């Protein structure tokens, strides 16, 4: 089965982010991650939410910077950039104060918002 066209459709849908639907989903997932981290503590829920969070934000980022690359390498770059962004924002917040559960959720919020804004900027650039 050829999965590339299906993936491209999903990628297009997420990258269009109309009207901020996937940004909102990403922020809601961040809240779910927080609730799971503090109350439920289930690795299964954690893994599922982790995959959703990574999928959405990876697509935002790879769409901004590596649109012309092959699908596989685009995704790899997207994941790597997301890890870098999480690491950098996490590092900064940890240096400023600490990385407890609320501050960690703040990291997710900042990364989601940044990825979404960058994606928006790219979209506007392409339109104009």
């Amino acid at each position, binding site marked *: 089965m050829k999965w590339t066209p299906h993936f491209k459709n999903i990628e297009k849908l997420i990258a269009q982010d109309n009207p901020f639907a996937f940004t909102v989903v990403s922020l809601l997932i961040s809240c779910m*991650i927080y609730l*799971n*981290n503090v109350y*439920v*503590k*289930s*690795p299964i*829920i*954690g*893994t599922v*939410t*982790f995959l959703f*969070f990574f999928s959405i934000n990876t697509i935002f980022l790879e769409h901004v*910077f590596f649109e012309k690359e*092959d*699908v*596989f*390498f685009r995704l*790899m770059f997207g*994941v*790597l950039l997301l*890890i*870098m962004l*999480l*690491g*950098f924002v*996490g*590092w900064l*917040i*940890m*240096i*400023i*104060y*600490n*990385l*407890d*559960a609320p501050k*960690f959720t703040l*990291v*997710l919020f900042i990364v989601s918002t940044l990825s979404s804004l960058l994606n928006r900027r790219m979209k506007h650039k392409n339109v104009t």
Partner: protein
Amino acid sequence: MSLSKQGSTKLLRISEILYMLLAVLSFYLLIASRTGEARTVWQVLHPAFIPTLFVTTSLLLTILFSSEKTTHKMLLIIVHSILLHSFFPIIFPAGDLSGQQTVLGQTRRVFDNTILHGLSGWPTRTLQIFIVEMFRGTNLQAALSTIFARMLSIDIFHVHLFLVPVLWGTFVPVASFLTTKALGGDDKASVLSSLLVSAFPYPTYFGAISVPNSLGFIFFFYSLYFMLKHLSSNNSRTAYFMVAFSFFSFLAHSLTGIISFSLLLLALAFKSYKSEKAPSSITSKASLAISFLFCVSLLPLSFIYLRFLNPAYHTIFTLDKFYELPPEEIAGLFLIGELTYGFDPKTILLVITGSTFALLYMIYLLHKLKKNSTTEFRIHFSFLFASFLIILIDYRILKLFMDGLPLNEERLWVFRDFIAVPFVALAIYAVISPIKAFLKAKSPPTITITSLKTLSKSNVLRVITLLSTLNVLIPAVLGGWITFSLSAAYPQVAPLQTTWYELEAVKYIEENTQEKYVVIGDVWTIYAGEMIVGIYNPQAYYFGEQDSRGISLFTEMRRDPSPQVMIEAMNQTGTDTTVAYFIVTEPRLGVEEFNSTVSKTLQNGLPVYATFGNEKLYIFYYEK
């Protein structure tokens, strides 16, 4: 689709399924080798693992030489790479006994919120020290591990152990692929390079331990790729990424950061040289040579300047080694570095083969391209050759002319090997390509029995020889090289790794003590303790593994175990600690000393709190 094409696609799918089954079997055998008490992975590896791995790697190489899609090949390589880098976290209960355990001890403090403002804490003695500490790679790694652990709701222990093996296994092959591609290699050569990176022992070792330096190496490899891209592109985005990856490399570890920025400056110098109107003029060549010397000097000088930021560092330039060591040892250090001390010829060969091969091929390529100055990738080859030389020279400077370095110079070999990998792949592919071209020319579209019948006997023999060379011999040789390299990558000699009963003991204390406590134990107990409760945790206090107070308290307890020493340990914590534990382990002390310490402690009236591992480990306690 033609019948022959359909047949070859079917064969390819079968090979891929077979590969996946073998990979699963390899993982299973690795898990079956898991043990709670061993020194090296070689002591406990399942006897079927290495043969299975050899067959799996050879089969993967056969798939790599086929016409399969690059994406599929890369996915299989990533699976393979994760397998090759997961020996420590899968086999040992607490990963490799090394700095990675201390890093986990520090990360644990961030995860458990027992520290503010990063691992240095605030306020530190001076602003300079705070800046140095802030940019220490442990901070970035602690932040990343904590974020992943919280996202997945998994304890930091497991996330930390698998962080680098998984990231390395995923991203280093991709970086190797991209770097080879940026050098003009075609997809097959690039794919080959992404697997061959596992044939180099130093990178394999660093990909298997979760330390900040390993993270830095990953970012360095990507910065190198963007530097190569920058040489042939004027796209500002490429330049941004080149700088961004160098910065991240620095954030992950100062060594990788400094090397990244050195090579970045060199790349800019090469780019400016390339854009000169008269690149062959003496001025342009001189400016390139000066840039090269500057880049060479950056790493050694940075160690010297580190003293101005933190007086604890005391690196100096010295000629002491030339006065103290015999000439043959100096020569050995110059040629093969640390390998000169007691390593067997097999290990030496495995460590230097790839890079020597790459150096020779680089020289050959540069010589070949010398006549043709318009060749597209000439500047890329020259840049990488210069980078390779920088690493070789810096290593010798650090090894022979410097003292008091805060790290082991052998780490530089990872940079050397990263630069070497694409050249090794290109060289191997240069050998394979003519065989493939010949086979293609002889048999449109593939060789069949009927087409063989039309050829003369000598030609049939030739075709069969070439076919078996391509599909059996070369994959077997390369597969053997990669498998055999693991014997140099994973140590053959090591102290007893953290045992299951040491981990259980520190967990038991943590779970069953409500009050603040301190633990007196040997360095191995401290490693186990800091992994579970963190280093210098005021609630559950373990002295750092290099803390002289902890060492002297343990020595005192071995000599004369008494409540007074335990009270002294409580007072050393700086908090209102009311319980002290003393841990002794038989394999660490030796049977005689262990028995003597246990009986002395009992005679002195300290009660046994618990025993673990069939009484191989005793915990004594004292409460105020």
